[in-house]
């Protein structure tokens, strides 16, 4: 027996089947280590899950802004200044790309989590539900961007 065999030693000591001298069955369990690298679908899934870390990180950045605002004008302006740095701009572009991936991949899951959507007695295709949700998210983001842009000019 090799070290990779997950079963305890002496498999032949297993209870004998009737009429069989020893039980020759020795099912082999394959290891799971590195499972998510075996298929591009799993890599994409892990990337989707991983984007949650970026969402949490950006929430912390915004939370720091709130704390700085509570500390007074100088602190708040310092936080704003930090956001204008070239490094911050690059980071924001990275965050934007990650958030777009997060949004698209989670809306791909959306149709799996709901009962069939019937329009005129016919099921709406899952791809149409995903596309619709992405369109609504994009429109809402643009509208919010437009409102904030208008308010801050």
């Amino acid at each position, binding site marked *: 027996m090799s070290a*990779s065999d997950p079963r305890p030693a002496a498999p032949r000591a297993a209870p004998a089947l009737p009429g069989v001298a020893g039980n020759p069955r020795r099912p082999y369990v394959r290891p799971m280590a590195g499972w998510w690298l075996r298929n591009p679908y799993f890599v994409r899934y892990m990337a989707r899950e991983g984007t949650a870390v970026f969402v949490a990180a950006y929430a912390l950045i915004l939370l720091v802004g709130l704390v700085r605002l509570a500390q007074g004008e100088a602190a708040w302006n310092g936080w704003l200044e930090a956001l204008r740095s070239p490094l911050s701009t690059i980071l924001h572009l990275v965050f934007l790309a990650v958030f777009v991936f997060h949004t698209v991949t989670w809306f791909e899951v959306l149709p799996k989590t709901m009962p069939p959507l019937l329009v005129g007695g016919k099921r709406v295709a899952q791809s149409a539900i995903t596309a619709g949700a992405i369109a609504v998210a994009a429109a809402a983001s643009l509208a919010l961007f437009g409102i904030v842009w208008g308010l801050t000019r």
Partner: protein
Amino acid sequence: MSTNEKTIEIEVLRYRPEQDAAPFPQTYVVPYSDDMSVLQGLQYIKDQLDGTLSFRWSCRQAICGSCGVMIDGIPKLSCKSFLRDYAGKGRVRVEALANFPIERDLVIVMDSFVEKLESIKPYIIPKEPRPLSAGEYLQTPAQLDAYAQYSSCINCLLCYAACPQVGLSPDFVGPAALALLFRYNSDSRDGGAAQRMPVVGAESGAFHCTAVGYCSEVCPKGVDPASAVNQAKGASVREYFMGFLGKGGGK
């Protein structure tokens, strides 16, 4: 075999428990034609090259669910996959379905699945006793549509081989069994939902699913188990909170 016959290398993950400590790849050169399935390639090996090779098959037409294997790492029915589609690389890799113990060569141990299937009571449990004289149950097309796709499952276990959660947590009831659970709970003739919901809400139930979604990708019958599992989560949550209002579960 004529010299101009097309051939392909089929690499099979062999495991013979009485003599091998661990599985190992063995390559066979198999002549093929454009209409030959991977299953027919395996049958050629067994009949012409190596009679010791073991694999399961029966109907050869994608309805019995016996011949599922990993083909180049992807769970597929070997009867529904064709050697011509792998000819470009000149070779194809065949392995027993992932996430199951290997009994021998391409044959898996599926006892755990059969137990899970039994646990979800995969049969109609009538709402009340009904005499034969009452005639057949009537269903509207909409009532049929509520469960029809989930009843297409052929228990081929490709979805289990596609589900990393099954491999990481072997107790997980898994996609096909949960899809069938949802199928019976969604059937207008059935009154057994209260008996099945504990399986959904259990530690080993639907909440083990992390919405990878690959089960639905590999399903050869369009069952979409991921949608059933995730709708079952919703049903379980509703039942849990309705329990606080004294309307839950019929326990």
